[in-house]
C-alpha cells in the first residue's frame, strides 16, 4: 500500500511538469469553458483521491489491527451482529460528497452549455476520413464565406460558434485546452462553442474511433488577437500569395497541381476545385501537413506527397510520383500560398 501511495505522490508531483509538454492536457484550460472544466476535473479528482486514501487507510487499519487470537475453528463473533455502524457512517459521509459532486457538475453544465455572450463568428467544421474541412460562414455576405482545412483560426476573447458534422463516419471534435468534446455525426449538425482568451496554438484531435487513421486525425486551433484575425481573414479572402514567387515557378507549380492534384484538391482563384481532399487555399499559412501528421516544411511536404502511405497508411491520398523538378515547383507554390 505504501508503494501505491508513493507512486501516487510521484505521479502527482510529476504531473505539472509533464503537463507543460502535453498539448492535449485538459487540467490547464484557456478560455471560460475549458477553465470551468479544468476546475471540475481538479475538484472531482481531488475528492476521488481523498476517498481512495481514506478507504485505503480504513482497509489497512481493519486488516492489521490487533485482535485476540482464536483457535482454528473459533469464530470472531458469537452472534451475527455488529459492524452496521460502518455502513451508516460510510453512507452519511459519502452521500454529501456525492451530492456536492452532482451539484458542482450541474453548475458547471449550466456555465458551459452555452457561451456567455452570443458568438459573432460561426465556423462549420466537417469531419472527413481523416481530415477536417473548415468553412467560415458569413451570414450577411456569401462572398465573405470561405473554406480551409485542418487549421482553425479564431479571434481571442470571444466565443466562436461551431457547427459540427461529418461527411462519412462519426468523428469527435476536441480541443482539450479550449473545451470539451462534441461528436460529429453524419446526418446531424451539433452546435458547439470554444473560446480562447490568449493568443496561441492549441492542438485538437479526433476523439471518436473513425478507422485506420483515427490516430493521425489532428488539427490546430490558432488563436489571434481580433486585429490579427481580421488581417488573416482578409488574406484568406484574397488570392494573393503570402510570399512572392517568380512567375515561372508559379506557372510551373500550378501546372503540376492541375495535372496531379486538382481532381481532389482546391485552391481558390485557380482552376483547381476538387472537393475530395482538404482545400489547400493558403496552405502555406498552416502549421502542419496531413491533419497534424507532419510539421509544415517544404521538405516534409515533398516527402508527404511521395510517401502518403508510409506517413499515414490507409489515407485516401495515393502517393504521387513527381520528378524532382515537379516536386520542387509544387512545394514552392504550396508553401507560398
Amino acid at each position: 500500500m505504501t508503494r501505491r501511495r508513493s507512486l501516487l505522490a510521484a505521479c502527482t508531483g510529476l504531473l505539472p511538469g509533464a503537463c507543460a509538454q502535453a498539448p492535449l492536457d485538459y487540467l490547464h484550460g484557456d478560455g471560460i469553458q475549458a477553465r470551468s472544466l479544468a476546475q471540475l476535473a481538479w475538484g472531482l479528482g481531488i475528492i476521488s483521491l481523498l476517498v481512495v486514501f481514506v478507504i485505503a487507510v480504513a482497509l489497512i487499519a481493519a486488516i492489521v489491527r490487533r485482535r485476540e487470537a482464536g483457535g482454528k475453528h473459533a469464530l470472531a463473533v458469537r452472534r451475527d451482529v455488529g459492524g452496521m455502524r460502518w455502513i451508516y457512517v460510510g453512507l452519511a459521509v459519502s452521500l454529501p460528497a456525492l451530492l456536492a459532486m452532482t451539484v458542482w457538475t450541474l453548475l458547471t453544465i449550466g456555465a458551459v452549455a452555452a457561451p456567455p455572450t452570443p458568438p459573432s463568428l460561426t465556423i462549420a467544421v466537417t469531419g472527413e476520413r481523416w481530415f477536417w474541412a473548415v468553412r467560415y460562414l458569413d451570414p450577411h455576405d456569401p462572398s465573405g464565406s470561405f473554406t480551409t482545412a485542418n487549421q482553425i483560426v479564431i479571434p481571442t476573447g470571444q466565443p466562436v460558434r461551431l457547427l459540427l458534422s461529418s461527411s462519412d463516419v462519426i468523428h469527435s471534435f476536441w480541443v482539450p485546452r479550449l473545451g470539451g468534446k462534441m461528436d460529429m455525426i453524419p446526418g446531424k449538425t451539433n452546435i458547439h462553442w470554444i473560446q480562447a482568451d490568449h493568443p496561441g496554438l492549441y492542438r485538437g484531435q479526433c476523439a471518436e474511433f473513425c478507422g485506420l487513421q483515427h490516430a493521425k486525425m489532428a488539427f490546430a486551433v490558432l488563436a489571434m488577437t481580433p486585429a490579427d484575425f481580421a488581417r488573416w481573414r482578409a488574406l484568406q479572402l484574397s488570392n494573393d500569395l503570402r510570399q512572392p514567387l517568380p512567375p515561372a515557378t508559379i506557372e510551373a507549380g500550378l501546372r503540376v497541381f492541375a495535372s496531379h492534384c486538382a481532381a481532389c484538391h482546391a485552391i481558390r482563384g485557380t482552376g483547381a476545385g476538387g472537393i475530395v481532399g482538404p482545400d489547400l487555399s493558403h496552405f502555406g499559412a498552416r502549421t502542419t501537413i496531413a491533419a497534424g501528421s507532419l510539421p509544415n516544411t517544404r521538405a516534409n511536404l515533398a516527402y508527404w506527397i511521395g510517401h502518403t502511405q508510409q506517413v499515414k497508411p490507409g489515407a485516401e491520398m495515393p502517393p504521387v510520383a513527381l520528378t524532382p523538378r515537379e516536386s520542387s515547383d509544387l512545394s514552392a507554390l504550396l508553401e507560398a500560398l
Partner: protein
Amino acid sequence: MATKAEHLPQAERAKLDRTWETAPGLFGWVGTVDHKVIGIRYLVTSFVFLLLGGIEALVIRIQLAQPDLHVLTPEQYNQLFSMHGVTMIFLYALPVLSGFSNYLWPLMLGARDMAFPRLNALSYWLFVCAGLFLYASFPFGAAPDGGWFNYVPNAARTYDPGPNIDIFALGLIFLGISTTVGSANFVVTLLRCRAPGMSVNRLPIIVWGTFTASVANLFAVPAVSLACAELWLDRNAGAHFFEVSGGGQPLLWQHLFWMFGHPWVYALVLPSMGIVSDALPTFCRRPLVGYTAVAIATVSTMIVGFGVWVHHMFATGIPVLALSYFSAASFVIAIPSAIAVFSWIATIWTGRPVFKVPFLYFSSFILMFVIGGVSGVMTASVALDWQLTDTYFVVAHLHYVLIGINLFPVLGGIHYWFPKMTGRMMDERLGKWAFWLVLIGFNLAFFPMHFTGLMGMPRRVYTYPAEMGVGGLNLTTTIGAFVLALGILLFLTNVARSLARGADAGPNPWDAPTLEWSVPSPPPPYNFGVIPLIASRHPLWEDRLEDIEDASVLERGFLLDEDRETLGVTPLDAEPDVILKMPGDTILPFALALSISLLFGGLFAKSIWLGGAGTLAVLVVLTLWFRPRAEPLQERPALYE
C-alpha cells in the same frame, strides 16, 4: 459441525452414483449434463479466452510502449484492440462467472442440478461455438476491427467492406443465444431448485448477484441482438437502419448498444462482488456485515443500471437537460456500491482475518473497487466527461472495473473453491507470489494510465507523436502489463502443480459456513445424498453462532433415489413443492449447438444451402428434444396436498 453424506448407507450411495454418473467414453464427454462438469468447462474455456485476450493486450502494449512505433500496421492494431475487447468482455468476463455459478449454485442451494441440465449444456456448447465463430476470421487477418462497441457508420459496408464486421454482428447474436438460455436457466433454478428452508433471505450473495445479472441479461441482450441483426441487414440486404442516406440514424446503434452494454457491465461485476461477499467472511471468521443491505444493493445497482446508458453518449449532442438526468442517475449508482464497500470493510474490521491467498485477493479487491468506482463517478459527471470520454482515463477506469472487480475475485475465488472442485489445495507460497505480481503489475500498468488520459491521449490510437508527452507513462504501463502477465502465468502454474500434487483438501478446508462445504471434495455426481433442510444462512457455523436457534438438518432428508430426481420448492419460502425428474446424458445440446453453428456459417457465407441445412438440422434436433414422451417425466404430484 458439519456433516456428511457418509451417513448414507453404502448401497444407497452406490445407487445414487449409478443413477447420476456421467456415461464413460466419448458419449459421456460430449453428452454430460452435470452442472459441475459444465461449470469447470466454463471456467477453463473462459481462461483460454483470457489468455488469448491477454496476449493481444501485450502485443498492443508493445506497439504503444513508445511514440511512433511501427510494430503493427494500423489495421492490425485495430483488429487486435477490437478482439481484445470482444474477447475479454464477451468471452471471458461473463462466461467465467457463469462457470462459478454453474458449479456452485446447486451445491450452495442444496439441489442436485440446475433446473434445466440440458439447457445448461446447450449454453456452454453455444458459448464455445460462438467464441470460435468470433475468432474464425482472425487467422485470415479479417477479425472484427470496429472496437467492442462497433459504432456505425464506421462499421457500415461502405467504410468496412470486408467480412470483419459481419463476423462481429453474427457472432454477438450467436453468443446472445447462449447468454439467454443460460440466464433463463439461472432464473428458474433460483426460483425452483433449492433445498427446503433455503428461503430468499438465506441465499448466498453470489446467488443474488448471478440472479440479478441473469434477469438483466434477459432484458438487455435482446437490444444488442436486435442492433446486430439490423447492422447485418444494413450490410448485406440494403436496409437503412443506420444509413443516413436512407433515413437511418447512426445514434440508434449507440442507444441500442448501450441499453445492453451498461447493464452488461453490471452483469460482469455483480456475481464477482458476490464471490467476495460470500468468501471474504470465511477468512474474517464471521458472517458478512449487513447481508440484507448488500443483497438489496446488488439488486438496486442493476435497476438503476438500466437507466444510465446515455452516460456513454454524453458527447453526442443530446440536449443537456436529458444529460443531466443520466448524470444524476449515474451518481446514484455509487450509493449501493458504497454500501457493499463499507460492508466488506466492516466485516474485516469486526472479524479476525486469516491471511490466506483468497483473503489477499478479496481485501485488495476492495481498494481496486474503490479506485474504479471513484473514476466512474468522475466520468458520470457530464461536464467532466466531455473531457474524459474517449481518453485513456476511461481505459484506466474500465480496467480497474474489469480487472479489479472481475479478475481479482475470480482469482481469489478459484483459490477458494479449487479444493472443492478438485479435492486438492492450491499452493499458498506460489499463490502469494502470483498475487503480489498481479497486484503490482496491474497497478503499475493501470494507475499511471489515469494520468495518460488526463494528459489527453485519446483511446484507440495505434500510435502517438512524441510531443504529446505521454511516452514515459506508456512505457510504465507496458512494463506493468508484462508483470501482470507474469503473475497470471504463475497462477496457472500453481493450478497445474496443485492439480497434480496439491495437499488433500477434505470437505471443508477453510472451515467455511455455506452448504457446498458440507459435501465431499470433489462432490459426488448427485451432490447431496439426501436433500438437506436449511435453517440459516450459515448451516455449517450454526453450532458456533448463538443467535441461530433452529438447526439445519444435513444428514436426514428427502432421499429421492428413483431415477434422477431433485426437489422443486416454492419460489420465496422454499417450501417443498414437487419432485423434479431430471434428464440424463444426451448429445442433443451438442448437436443443437453444431446445427446453430451451421446456420450461422450459412448466414455468414450467405449460402442458402448451408443456411438451409443448418435450419433443417436445428428443426430436427429441436423435434427430438421436444418429442412427446409416454409419461410426463418432469414433475410428480405435490408432496403435501
